[in-house]
């Protein structure tokens, strides 16, 4: 893309005219020196403008994601990215086969985890390939820099993809607007800032790529586009579990087309090619494997595949049987038997256990209250909560009301492609409402549909403006792409104030779009660019205070504990402890074993002597808790504690939630429940906190995160001892004492 605009003028210097295009080149070259003599053909001008806009958008998408690097440093953010970083490091150091067969004994002690079979390797392989490529080109970069910049790089690529997608479903104008909108849309930025090295960063690119190639295949009916979309799907499967969305949306789309009578040979080729090859490729990913043909989430795709064949058969029979009546009867019979056979097969498969039922996470998508009642471990994650209206507004801003407008335009000009984008938009919007993190999936659709609205509106308005001055030209010249709008423009010519109105509306649109830009920039810099591992606050004199306690603690673990020490903490910190502290953890963010997590939850919510038994049985050497009472950091373990109780109680009925509450209220002060005041988590968090004065004018032991004086100031530890506390007390590490000598 970058090169395309410049070489046109580069020719004049370097090459004699080899083709009919080059005689214009000298003009272009001179155009650089005097703007007046710039004589480009309209088509060339358009190309130049389009390519330069795309280049600018490409750069913008990358640059706007660098706030976090400028504000903080080039580092990995959050929790999951640390695991991805650790595995990428392993991949680059040990090679692909070692990575594929990696049994990680540093997590889920004593069970361990088979890394190769339980992750989506797309992200790591992508980063490693980028790294090896750069190394090959003799760029001596560190793998960390590659990982930090992977997400922005793919976000930039996504903008280009959005352009092509927009072009495919509407026109180039909509494509350009879509590229610009998605480049800075906060919903996407939230998961793709520099350092946010997570599957989603790559997966959104893969998702849009698959959709684009599939729509292209449906539009052209070409086998090659169908194959390309299968490979796009393969990349998506290798990158993110969200591929399930594709494998359900695409059949749903096909089904809608079948029902609305839009069945065509193009659709047949595109879907069959994509499904068959995509399925075979997806099964190569070990984490997916035979699930792709066995699990409930993938059955819709298979059903639609068979339905396609039935349709094809019917089409063929219709062609053979010229008698309509006979065909009607046959149709009824075939469809009934096909549906019957399908239902029986599904029933038998499910009953015999061959087809596994839906997973909890999938089920909770369809029924938002399911997880809350049945799977506390899914409900405990903040990004799995239902979305609030404010976060829609925060992430989409004007796109939120441009979206329905875009839907209107789509329905006005219905085609296979617009039906697809409408379905993608509506379904993903529903999912975005169920889970906060799925706003991300909805973002490309929202941007594309809004882009249609913006582009179509502005095009109509400018046509109106131009129609006044040169009416004949606009009607004939520009009518091709949006004929209705143009004709409407020429029809309404008689209306008064029309031109002024159009100008006012254009200014309005410009105002809204510029508001969008400022909003996006503000959100990016304020909300989505903090790494969450380093906390920043304003000091008393307006200076910036950095709380780097997490890394202080992790580095202490790394340097000053035995290499085989086992650290017990709540699962949130597991990935970070293994990646930064380089120590074995009991549970981590890959929440695959609920019982194990519940055991840790039980230990945390038991009395010290009971907890000691559990910790001894798990060979725990150190216990790590996060405590925000000194700094007022609110996402600490005491605030997460009820989830530990719930998850622990879900498996071990000994732990009962009401024991920790007083009249249904969760409190840590004097009025707290006795079990609460003496459980391990409370003791470890508040050990010797009662001696500390945190705020002037408050009694010692005043918890700033919860705004109360703690209820148990005289905490004695019998089986554990304080090993390390960070400078702001955010992380506290305790050593589990060895058992006493018997004599």
């Amino acid at each position: 893309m970058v090169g395309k605009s410049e070489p046109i003028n580069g020719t004049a210097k370097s090459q004699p005219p080899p083709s009919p295009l080059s005689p214009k080149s000298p003009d272009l070259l001179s155009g650089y020196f005097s703007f007046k003599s710039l004589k480009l053909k309209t088509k060339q001008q358009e190309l130049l403008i389009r390519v330069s806009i795309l280049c600018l958008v490409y750069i913008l998408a990358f640059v706007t994601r660098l706030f976090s690097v400028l504000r903080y440093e080039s580092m990995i953010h959050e929790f999951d990215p640390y695991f991805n970083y650790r595995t990428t490091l392993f991949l680059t150091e040990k090679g692909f086969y070692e990575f594929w067969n990696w049994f990680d004994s540093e997590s889920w002690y004593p069970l361990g985890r088979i890394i190769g079979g339980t992750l989506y390797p797309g992200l790591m392989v992508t980063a490693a390939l980028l790294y090896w490529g750069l190394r090959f080109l003799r760029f001596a970069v560190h793998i960390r820099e590659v990982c930090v910049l992977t997400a922005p790089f793919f976000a930039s690529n996504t903008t280009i993809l959005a352009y092509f997608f927009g072009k495919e479903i509407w026109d180039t104008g909509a494509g350009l607007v879509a590229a610009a909108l998605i480049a800075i849309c906060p919903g996407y930025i939230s998961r793709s800032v520099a350092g946010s090295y997570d599957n989603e960063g790559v997966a959104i690119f893969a998702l849009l790529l698959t959709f684009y190639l599939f729509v292209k295949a449906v539009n052209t009916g070409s086998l090659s586009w169908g194959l390309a979309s299968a490979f796009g799907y393969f990349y998506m499967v290798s990158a993110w579990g969200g591929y399930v969305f594709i494998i359900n949306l695409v059949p749903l789309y096909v089904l809608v087309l079948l029902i609305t009578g839009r069945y065509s040979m193009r659709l047949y080729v595109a879907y069959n090619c994509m499904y068959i090859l995509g399925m075979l490729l997806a099964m190569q990913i070990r984490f997916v494997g035979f699930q792709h043909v066995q699990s409930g989430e993938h059955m819709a795709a298979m059903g639609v595949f068979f339905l396609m064949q039935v349709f094809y058969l019917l089409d063929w029979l219709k062609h053979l049987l010229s008698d309509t009546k006979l065909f009607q009867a046959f149709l009824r019979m075939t469809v009934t038997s096909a549906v019957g056979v399908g239902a029986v097969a599904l029933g038998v498969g499910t009953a015999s256990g061959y087809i596994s039922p839906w997973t909890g996470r999938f089920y909770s998508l369809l029924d938002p209250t399911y997880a809350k009642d049945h799977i506390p471990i899914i409900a405990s994650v903040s990004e799995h909560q239902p979305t609030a209206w404010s976060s829609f507004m925060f992430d989409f801003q004007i796109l939120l009301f441009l979206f329905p407008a875009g839907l209107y335009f789509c329905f006005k000009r219905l085609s296979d492609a617009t039906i697809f984008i409408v379905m993608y938009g509506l379904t993903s919007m529903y999912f975005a409402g169920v889970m906060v993190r799925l706003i991300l999936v909805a973002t490309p659709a929202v941007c594309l549909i809004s882009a249609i609205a913006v582009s179509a509106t502005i095009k109509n308005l400018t046509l109106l403006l131009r129609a006044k001055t040169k009416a004949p030209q606009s009607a004939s010249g520009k009518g091709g792409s949006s004929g209705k709008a143009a004709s409407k423009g020429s029809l309404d010519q008689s209306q008064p104030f029309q031109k002024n109105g159009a100008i006012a509306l254009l200014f309005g649109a410009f105002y809204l779009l510029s508001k969008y830009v400022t909003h996006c920039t503000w959100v990016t810099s304020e909300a989505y660019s903090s790494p969450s591992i380093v906390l920043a606050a304003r000091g008393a004199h307006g200076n910036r205070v950095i709380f780097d306690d997490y890394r202080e603690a992790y580095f202490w673990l790394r340097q000053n504990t035995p290499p085989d020490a086992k650290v017990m903490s709540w699962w949130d910190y597991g990935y970070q402890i293994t990646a930064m502290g380089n120590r074995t953890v009991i549970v981590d963010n890959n929440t695959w074993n609920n019982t194990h997590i519940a055991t840790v939850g039980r230990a945390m919510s038991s009395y010290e002597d009971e907890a000691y038994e559990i910790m001894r049985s798990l060979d725990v050497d150190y216990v790590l808790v996060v405590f925000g009472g000194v700094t007022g950091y609110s996402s600490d373990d005491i605030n997460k504690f009820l989830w530990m109780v719930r998850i622990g109680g879900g498996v071990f009925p000994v732990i009962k939630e009401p024991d920790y509450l007083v009249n249904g209220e969760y409190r840590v002060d004097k009025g707290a429940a006795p079990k609460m005041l003496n459980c391990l988590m409370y003791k470890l968090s508040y050990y010797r906190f009662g001696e500390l004065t945190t705020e002037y004018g408050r009694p010692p032991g005043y918890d700033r995160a919860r705004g109360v004086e703690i209820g148990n100031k005289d905490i004695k530890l019998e089986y554990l001892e304080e090993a390390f506390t960070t400078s702001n007390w955010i992380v506290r590490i305790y050593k589990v004492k060895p058992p006493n000598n018997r004599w």
Partner: protein
Amino acid sequence: MGLFQVENTGASPASEILLAFPPTQVDHLAVVKAQVATGKRKKKTYTPLDVNPKELPDAPNGTKYLSISLLNPLAAGEAVTLEVLYILTHSLEPFPVEISQSESQLVYYHDSALILSPYHIKQQITFIKTPTTKVESFTVVDPTHRAGTELKYGPYNDRPPHSYSPVIVHLENNSPFAVVEELVREVEISHWGSLQITEQYKLAHAGARHKGVFSRVEYQSRPGHSGVSSFRHLLARLPPRVHSVYYRDEIGNISSSRLRLGALKSELEIEPRYPLFGGWKATFVIGYGLPLEDFLFESPDGRRYLNFSYGCPLVETVVDKLTIKVVLPEGSKEPSAVVPFPVNQYLEKKYSYLDIVGRTVVVLEKNNVVPEHNIPFQVYYHFNPIFMLAEPLMLTSVFFLLFVTCVAYLHIDLSLRK
């Protein structure tokens, strides 16, 4: 530091004087310097003398010798006064070996009241200075006196050669035992005008090991009483005009550091992520850039040479193993290093940005480095300035080719249909 008055009682003139060290001390011997004073009291001038290790066949119990070469041979019956300075690392042994947070650190100092010497000693006095007045115990070898921070052994008269009288002083010492176990300094020369230095530290507190609880409450509220032997600040003296300084470790930037720029020297005050108690470790990297013209010169024979300081920029630390890697620019030839003390030398290759043949790296290794080793060393090499253009030309040609292919792509019609 020893002041020796040496008299030649033999018949023939002596051109060298031997110093003897027990084998336990030799391994920790960092520096030995000898100088001779000439002139009267006020106009004293000092002349340094050469000191070299020497093997003697009849050394008792593995005693090692160093010989000091005198300027003029000492004639029979003549006497000369020598000043000898030697520095031993790791000569204080913490006892008790483990202390808790509230205790202060006590160490053993092992030495001999009488210096080990192959010569007959006419008279000797040994002074031991202690950092504080707090001394738990000391070996008494009469006559022994203690006053304030000073311990005086002697005077002892007429002792035979190789006499040895071990003494142990048990004293309080809470100065930070910051030991850099390993330091790798990489100096990368770029003829485009900068010198990039990367220093990788493995720091440890080599004092009495920390035992039991680390309590943040006590550490915060009673700083003078709790964790007195621990340390949390380190000072690095960097050359003036230093720029783009960074301080980080494996898991990211460490935000607690302060840089003071000065005309003569720059000071970088760094704070490890956590205070270091006995036995705790920390690794980190300091990097900075320096202007090339301050350190790179051209010698009269057309060669270039780098003039850079050996040793560790951290103030008052001992380095167990120091490796200096001088990365010469790509295309430089015949490197040779001139170091004023013995080091282990070899060559390596390194590939950096856009390197094709790789850069020659001169590696200089030395054990037991103390601040007295902060003296300049030189690395000479031949360099043709044309190599400076290699990388820009490479980049230019790549971009040129890229544009040419784009032009070609736009102008050539590859479609089959006409």
